[in-house]
């Protein structure tokens, strides 16, 4: 009987401790809404850069993958924020 009381008390203390710790933990998810714009801005910078100079010679043939790819390109899961800066059209 005495041992049962000790076990019940230990379980009670553990439950109370875990509830207390859980209340300290913030369950919300921090978003990258703000920093995401800097990520996208770095990509847009490369997008607006001048075209690379024409390469001489034939580019090396791409190896054929052992497993055929599904048709069409996969849609990127994160759409970039629109650019805040648009340089002059680059020469073609």
């Amino acid at each position: 009987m005495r041992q049962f009381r000790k076990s019940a008390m230990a379980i009670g203390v553990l439950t109370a401790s875990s509830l207390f710790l859980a209340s300290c933990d913030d369950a919300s998810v921090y978003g990258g809404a703000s920093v995401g714009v800097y990520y996208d801005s770095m990509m847009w910078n490369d997008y607006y850069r001048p075209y690379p100079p024409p390469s001489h010679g034939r580019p090396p043939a791409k190896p054929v993958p052992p497993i055929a790819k599904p048709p069409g390109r996969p849609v990127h899961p994160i759409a970039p924020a629109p650019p805040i800066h648009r340089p002059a059209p680059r020469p073609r």
Partner: protein
Amino acid sequence: MTLFRPISRGVMAAAISLFAAFPALSGTPVIYKDQGKALFQLDVPDFWNVRVGGARNLQAPQEDTPREVPRLIGLTPEGMDDVFVGFIAPRQVSSFEQGLAYMSEIGPHLVRDAEVSSSERRRIAGFPAMRVAGTGRRNGKTVHFTAVLIDIPGPRMAFSVTVLEAGHDPAVLDDVNAIYDSFRSAR
């Protein structure tokens, strides 16, 4: 037993001082690859988020053709949305002259009214590097940016930019510096 106690205390003290002396060792390595080739690597500090985008096709509004942009690694401290560190190996940038042009282009993309306040040549991870720092505005906030160009072995250069919005926690700068301290060429 009596002999063991002072030894174990000494070992514990040494271990604690080692951890304190090398905080940069507590990161997770990330390797930047382009077209299957490893170019450079860095350690992501604990409790930082990593966003890795591969080479992808972008199409700007009112543009008719999509263009490919290279892989970009973005790092942000967990729970903070006012600090950003990005790494990229831009194509067609293989010299400091081209890198400087790249730096001058990226400012207006990151912030409005970008103004350069300082620039210097230095070495990072033993490689020649250039650092340009300045300020601007984004989303109504003052923003400090530091752009770094690192001449890694081979025909490519690594480019990085750190963006700190006004009001950021200064303690996060230790982690940012640890990222740059961990930078290594993968070649």
